[in-house]
């Protein structure tokens, strides 16, 4: 910038200098030439008068060396009579000279001629005297070119001075222009105190500033949203770039891979190098998507890995991991349940078919016939009750919305116990019932199921001459159904599992008691459905107490 300013100052000043010099020189030259001509004219007139009076004598009396002009006296035929600077006899005929010719013709004439070197111009003035001769005066002066030639050294000196000055001024100006720019506060461009030429520039910076600030705020907000969402999600989320460097990792993933907080920027391999996940990542890179199940920290995780593409280029990978331990457990339970169901259904059928085949092939003696038919009947009933239980359970599983109504827990308990009195008498078990009215919201069928199964179990797993106490007590929030027996009890190691489907404490015992292994499971589901909680306390050999706590408004 300084160079530019320097150059323009220099060019301008030099041009001004040159033009003014030329103009001044031209004007002065014209003026001097005019004065000179005028003087020459006067001198000629004076000299002519003197020559007419005294003739050659006057001319010869002149001091030729001090004379500023050259005087020539020419005869009418052009021959030179006298000259102040040369010997007259040696000079050529002057009749053809322009000024002489004009003087002879009009009485007066003038002309100017340049010397061979162009540096001098000579002006001639001639006049015809009364005797017919011609008197001529001449004077030389430098031409304008010579004059200019003389000025050049001065001009060069002036130019040098101008250049130095221009450089100094340029330096100073640049400093003055730049200084405010250096101190401009770009954060708050409008608050700067600078010269007005800068304000459009500052205005533009201000606008850009606002724009970028807005964009930044938007970006930050988006990033915050993303971080907030990923920070609070239970699933682990990791974003990788195409080289496998972590771009983003959420807290759940940090926990899952038990890595440090700032894993961003690390290679994913340094966070987890297990073979299954590396293989899945490779598969996802080549096929676009891969799923794998991996055990981590005692839980099972499903890893969904997907490729992110932009155009035809892979720009990264998303790894999403979620805990599927419960799902796995549920799947396993379901598998076990189906296996159990098929087994439980098959056993009575095999027995029925075997008996039926014996009868069909006439291998049963007539007197044994009632025993065999009785056996078939017994097994078929067992099968039926099993199927009924399974249907009930699956209804509960389905979670169909069974309408609730106001029921009296005490009445329901009495009804169920009454149904079981015969069975209790057969097993020689005494039932003691103590109930009070206890109204709650529930499904009568399910509550009946709970009481019936619990009391049924209490009878079934009792000892000869044992006792069953059934009580319903009202509480502030609902009611408690307690069924306690003096039976065989449940061993401690089985107590947590008796509510599982088909779970039996004693596998060999099952047939004898005729249970299906689903009773307590139904109780549990019915209780869950009714919003009740079950507490079990049992001492092997002493007896079992099961308390079901209902709340009035589930």
């Amino acid at each position, binding site marked *: 910038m300084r160079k530019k300013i320097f150059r323009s100052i220099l060019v301008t000043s030099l041009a001004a200098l040159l033009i003014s010099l030329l103009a001044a020189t031209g004007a002065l030259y014209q003026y001097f030439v005019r004065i000179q001509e005028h003087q020459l004219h006067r001198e000629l007139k004076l000299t002519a008068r003197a020559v007419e009076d005294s003739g050659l004598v006057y001319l010869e009396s002149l001091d030729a060396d001090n004379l500023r002009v050259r005087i020539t006296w020419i005869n009418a035929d052009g021959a030179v009579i006298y000259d102040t600077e040369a010997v007259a006899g040696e000079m050529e005929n002057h009749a053809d000279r322009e000024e002489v010719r004009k003087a002879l013709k009009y009485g007066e004439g003038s002309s100017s001629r340049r010397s061979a070197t162009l540096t001098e111009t000579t002006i001639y003035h001639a006049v015809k005297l009364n005797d017919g001769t011609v008197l001529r005066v001449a004077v030389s002066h430098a031409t304008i070119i010579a004059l200019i030639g003389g000025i050049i050294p001065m001009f060069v000196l002036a130019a040098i001075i101008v250049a130095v000055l221009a450089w100094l001024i340029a330096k100073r100006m640049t400093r003055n222009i730049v200084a405010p720019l250096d101190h401009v506060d770009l954060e708050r461009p409008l608050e700067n105190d600078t010269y007005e030429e800068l304000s459009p520039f500052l205005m533009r910076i201000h606008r850009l500033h606002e724009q970028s600030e807005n964009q930044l705020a938007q970006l930050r907000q988006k990033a915050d949203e993303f971080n907030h969402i990923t920070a609070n999600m239970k699933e682990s989320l990791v974003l990788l770039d195409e*080289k*496998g*460097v972590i771009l983003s990792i959420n807290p759940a993933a940090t926990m899952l891979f038990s890595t440090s907080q700032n894993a961003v920027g690390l*290679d994913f*391999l*340094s966070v987890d*190098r*297990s*073979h299954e996940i*590396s293989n899945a990542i490779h598969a996802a890179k080549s096929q676009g998507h891969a799923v794998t199940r991996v055990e981590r920290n005692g839980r099972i995780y499903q890893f969904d890995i997907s490729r992110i593409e932009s155009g035809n280029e892979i720009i990264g990978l998303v790894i999403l991991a979620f805990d599927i331990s419960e799902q796995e457990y549920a799947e396993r339970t379901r598998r076990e349940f189906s296996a159990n169901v098929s087994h439980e259904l098959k056993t009575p059928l095999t027995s029925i078919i075997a008996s039926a085949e014996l009868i069909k092939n006439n291998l049963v003696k007539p007197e044994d016939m009632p025993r065999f038919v009785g056996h078939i009947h017994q097994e078929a009933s067992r099968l039926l009750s099993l199927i009924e239980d399974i249907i009930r359970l699956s209804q509960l599983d389905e979670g169909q919305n069974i309408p609730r109504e106001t029921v009296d827990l005490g009445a329901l308990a009495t009804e169920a116990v009454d149904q079981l009195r015969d069975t209790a008498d057969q097993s020689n078990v005494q039932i003691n019932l103590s109930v009070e009215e206890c109204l709650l919201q529930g499904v009568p069928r399910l509550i009946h199921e709970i009481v019936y199964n619990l009391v049924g179990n209490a009878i079934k797993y009792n000892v000869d001459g044992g006792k069953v106490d059934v009580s319903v007590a009202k509480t502030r929030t609902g009611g408690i159904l307690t069924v306690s027996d003096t039976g065989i009890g449940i061993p401690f190691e089985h107590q947590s599992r008796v509510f599982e489907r088909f779970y039996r404490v004693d596998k060999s015992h099952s047939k004898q008691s005729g249970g299906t292994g689903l009773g307590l499971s139904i109780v549990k589901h019915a209780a869950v459905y009714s919003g009740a909680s079950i507490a079990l306390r049992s001492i092997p050999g002493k007896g079992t107490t099961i308390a079901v706590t209902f709340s009035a408004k589930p």
Partner: protein
Amino acid sequence: MMRSRFDEQLALLNREIIEMGALCEEVISLASTALSEGDIELAAQVTPLDRIIDQKERDIETLCIRLLLQQQPVARDLRQISAALKMVTDMERIGDQADDIAEIIMSLNGRTAEEHSHINEMATATMKMVTDSVDAYVKRDISLAQAVIAYDDVVDECFVCVKKNLIKMIAANPDDGEYALALLMIAKYFERIGDHATNIAEWVVYSVTGIHKEIKI
């Protein structure tokens, strides 16, 4: 521009070494599970993995040599590359020895080393050493690397125990000598794997500090 390409290649080298380390962990875990459960099928999975490890060693060596020639690294970069060159050799030996163990297991026809708890202990200990040495590399963790180096004594002690037990066993039951020798070989291989893990840990220390076995090189 040059530097960023160099950084990229260093990152690739790092990745390759971690992958190779993970493969070593995998083979040794397969071998030790196969040993404790007498699972011949598991043992058979070792050989193909060992081939991959061999291939990885060649790949990493090529990469290291290319880096040395083309980039002429200095200081820490040079240490990382030269340590990598040394480590892959040890890792490759771990792969080979796991493969040897697998072969012996297959020749045992499903007989396990269950009655020799020391051998299983050794297997667990060496597995820990290999995992920790790779971890030390991944995290550039000197204290973990030094723990691995110290842990080698545990494995060596285990080996002495196994040897004594096997001598007793041969004395008590001379007919089972072949089985005892097979177990001794397995124990020896585990002991060697421990040594290789120690070497890896030492090179990890070197690549971070520039000091190998207390000598500045």
